């Protein structure tokens, strides 16, 4: 109904306008002299002048109005080392283009006004002027030269990769060290990976990807993979160089953190990188925003807090990747060295203790998967096998520890132990365990529940490695 009324209004309005148009046409034929034409010229050219003035003033006014939001002007000055370079280039270009913009727009509409056709006016025959044309060819060329040189210097500085001898570590302490993390875009979330205590990301093989248990296809025979963990946000220490390895699993994505002026496509099968150094912690950014009236309002999601209190740097996707493109958000926290190390420790995969590993394996596999659309394996055969194998290993560890002092038993136990290590199904693992159980029967274990992981905390009998984790078939 509203649709019809709207359409009717438009039609009526159009008819009205057509009538006006016709009336003007008739009027001009009645007068049939040039005065009508001159009047139109003056009116239109005058309107052009008014438009130009309002337009140019509007440009200035709107810029001032939006200044608090424009990067590099309000509180959003760049929070990374290279960011201010980008901002400065932007602003230099803004200055140059603004001058050209104002001069040319003014000239266009002013000359149109000045040279409007009037009674007795006549155009001049001015077909070309080589000197003038040289001027407006050379001046832009010179300006462009400066922009190109400035731009390329900055670009090559920002984009150059780290030299080969640069070491990736947990917390850099010298010029030659950096933090290496990884972000993998997938529909529609970022899978983040930290290298753990060894500072090294393990290798990956996309054929080993398993939606539930190995979302990145980490190759478990690479020891660097063992302590890698998948947090749900990026946490980085302030002032330390970071190299993000950017990859994609399905389609193109783009790793974009606005406040750091960081942006790079994620391409399947072709890892890219971006190197940056965060310079402003989340806390000091919040304090900076606190000064701003537009941030002293209640937060939309948490009315008990003001907006500045909930501010966080955000990782977004900036390359169309499908229907959920707009929702690939991860929080980025910039903290002090101590907070960063504490956070690493708290990530269960980050600790090297066996206890941490058992729990950490679960965490790193399921932190980002459980409850999401990718959670297809929650109750799958693989999962049951995986848990069965883990349980058998824990039980076997307890048994072996109890019998550890008996050399002959330890020799006998090697065969089933190997079988346990290679077991790929829960049944196989259980069989291997019962063999171990039979051999070590004479030794009673400490009376603890089977799954009590403290009992295995110090054992090295069975490497609770992740090669036993379900592999894709």
């Amino acid at each position, binding site marked *: 109904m509203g649709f019809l009324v709207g359409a009717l209004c438009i039609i009526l309005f159009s008819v009205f306008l057509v009538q*006006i148009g016709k009336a003007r046409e008739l009027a001009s034929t009645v007068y049939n002299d040039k005065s009508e034409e001159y009047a139109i010229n003056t009116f239109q050219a005058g309107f052009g002048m008014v438009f130009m003035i309002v337009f140019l003033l509007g440009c200035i006014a709107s810029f001032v109005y939006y200044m608090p939001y424009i990067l590099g002007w309000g509180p959003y000055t760049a929070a990374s080392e290279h960011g201010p370079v980008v901002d400065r280039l932007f602003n230099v270009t803004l200055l140059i*283009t603004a001058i050209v913009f104002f001069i040319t727009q003014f000239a266009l509409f002013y000359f149109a006004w000045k*040279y409007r056709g009037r009674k007795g006016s006549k155009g001049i025959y001015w077909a070309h002027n080589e000197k003038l044309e040289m001027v407006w060819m050379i001046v832009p060329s010179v300006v462009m030269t400066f922009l190109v040189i400035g731009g390329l210097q900055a670009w090559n500085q920002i984009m150059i990769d780290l030299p080969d001898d640069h070491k990736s570590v947990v917390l850099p302490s010298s010029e030659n060290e950096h933090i290496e993390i990884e972000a993998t875009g997938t529909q529609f979330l970022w899978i983040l990976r930290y290298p753990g205590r060894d500072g090294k990301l393990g290798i990956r093989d996309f054929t080993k990807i398993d939606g539930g248990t190995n979302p990145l296809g980490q190759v478990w025979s690479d020891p660097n993979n063992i302590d890698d963990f998948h947090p749900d946000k990026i946490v980085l220490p302030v002032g330390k160089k970071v190299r993000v390895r950017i990859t994609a699993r399905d389609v193109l994505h783009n790793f974009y953190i606005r406040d750091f002026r960081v942006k790079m496509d994620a391409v*399947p099968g072709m890892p890219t990188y971006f190197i940056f150094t965060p310079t402003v912690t989340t806390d000091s950014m919040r304090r900076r925003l606190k000064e701003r009236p537009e941030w002293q309002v209640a937060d939309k999601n948490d009315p008990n807090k003001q907006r500045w209190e909930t501010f966080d740097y955000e990782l977004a996707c900036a390359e169309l990747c499908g229907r959920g*493109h707009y*929702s690939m958000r991860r929080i980025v926290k910039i903290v002090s060295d101590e907070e960063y190390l504490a956070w690493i420790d708290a990530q269960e995969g980050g600790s090297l203790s066996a206890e941490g590993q058992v729990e950490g394996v679960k965490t790193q596999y399921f932190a980002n998967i459980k409850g999401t659309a990718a959670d297809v394996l929650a109750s799958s055969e693989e999962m049951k096998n995986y848990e069965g194998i883990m349980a058998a290993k824990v039980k076997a560890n307890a048994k072996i520890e109890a019998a550890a002092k008996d050399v002959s038993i330890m020799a006998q136990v090697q065969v089933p132990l190997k079988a346990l290590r290679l077991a790929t199904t829960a049944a196989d693992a259980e069989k291997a365990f019962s063999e171990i159980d039979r051999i070590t029967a004479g030794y009673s274990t400490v009376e603890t529940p089977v799954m009590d992981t403290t009992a295995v905390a110090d054992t090295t009998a069975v490497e609770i490695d992740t090669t036993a984790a379900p592999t894709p078939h």
Partner: protein
Amino acid sequence: MADISVTDQDLHHGEDHGDHGHDDHHGDKYQSSFIDRYLFSMDHKTIAKQFLMTGMFWAVIGAGMSIIFRLQLGFPDADLSWLQPLLGGWIDINPSTGVGSLNPDFYYALVTMHGTIIVFFVLTAGLSGTFSNLLIPLQIGARDMASPMLNMFSYWFFFLSGVVMFASLFLNTGPFSGGWTAYPPLSELPQASDGSKAGMTLWLLSLVLFVVSVLLGGINYITTILNMRTKGMSMFRMPLTIWAFLVTAIIGLLSFPVIASGFFMVLFDRALGTSFFLNEIYVAGEALTERVGGSAILFQHLFWFLGHPEVYIIILPAMGIVSEVLSVHSRKPIFGYKAMVFSILAIAVLSFLVWAHHMFMTGMNPFVANIFVLFTLIIAVPSAVKVFNWIATIWGGNLRFNTPLLFAIGFVSLFISGGLTGLFLGNAAIDIQQHDTYFVVAHFHVVMGVAAFFGMFAGVYHWFPRMFGRFMNETLGKIHFWGTLIGAYAIFGPMHYLGMAGVPRRYYSFDTFSAFADFDMMNKFMTIAAIVVFLIQILFLINFFYSIYKGKKQTTMNPWEATTLEWTAPINAGHGNWPGAIPHVHRWPYDLSRYEDRDFVPQTEPLAEGEIDGGH
């Protein structure tokens, strides 16, 4: 009226079209039935009208789509269930509240279709197709194109391409939704997006047909311009429109086949199991172990090797039209004719050397960017020359504020505004921040979207009498102009600030990120402005169709007092354009305000004793 002193013996170029050389062209024996005359016509003037009207049809569809997705952006919480009769299942109705909202898949389909339709169907076919067809034979003095038959095929391939694209709108899985750039792997993996199912197949098919249309047209334009100019029409006596059409056609001929090859590779990847653009992909719970070794970046190189020249394919005809219109309505020769020609040529050459500036942040080796930054910013020089020359054309003129002139001035204003923002994006270091933000959206909409539309409008208002023997209504034209100019700046001006704040483009909703959620008011404002501008274009359509039948009649052959040849043909000329012999040319096309006693001297008037041809 100038004396057209030619005889049949002087005819050079009409000869091989003997059947057109008769005195009576209105009842051409090949064009006698209704179908031959209006449907499968070989008359370039009719084909031009077909291109124009088809372009207008697509413009309404393409712009209408933008209104729907602007509604989502400006009023994300509004109830859109009233659109359900039109969009059906694409409106998701919340079962508990009954509130209808746009399906995200369809949002992306709309964005994709909007881009594809406007870029290819409206601004390539509708603009270059219309005016190349209409003006090339008329302005160079030819009876028709070199091959009227190919010309007809060119239109019908375009039509067919449109039919296929239109059909894709009605697919169950929706039209293609991966952006008009169709980057793989998204465009190749049906598992990754509904739009990449049948929608993408039709999209590819449609655009391959479109490439055929462009090539058939382009070969014709080039051949006609090079071979069929009338006596005396040397290259440097051609109006700038013709130069623009010639160079446009050459660019199209060199670049469209490249994208066609890219499209075929995508088709092979989709249908035959090749892996040109696929590598190490895990999608929908499955690792595509057989599909390795390709490169997604390779497609982008192929795409932008067309994609960038494409923006010049769009803007050059508009520049040509504007040069012509500015000159005629300012009563002044175009300033620096040769500089204008050489800047068109320079832009054409450079347009092939800048494609990767669309790819600075795509993982391409960053050091390749150096060369592309250099060439991209060099392109600003010929562009600046053109702008200054247009302003110098107005300077010292005697401006007649007819609607075509207004649109030409509007074009220059928009081209300045949009061109200057290109200096940011062409500089790789700034592009780190600006790439794929609304700054890009604002930039290209102003410089090649709206500006090209303004060139098109200037052309339509200016050559409407040439097409239909009547004028469009001036008052409505002026309302149309001011409404569109103010409205276009109201839509795209604020968008720059959105980009400067780092808001990424192609976002269905800004609520997920606190960084991008500050601009509700601005988004509302832009949406309202877009709706107003859309309604004003309906005014143009009314004016257009009303004027075809009821517009003020053209009474003189040369109503704008222009110098060029198209105004020497009779009103409503039939197939063959000139009933008698083809006029000869004796001077350049810009002898305006040259002599005290005469406002203009047509190209057909022989040089007087001792008179030097202008432009030298």
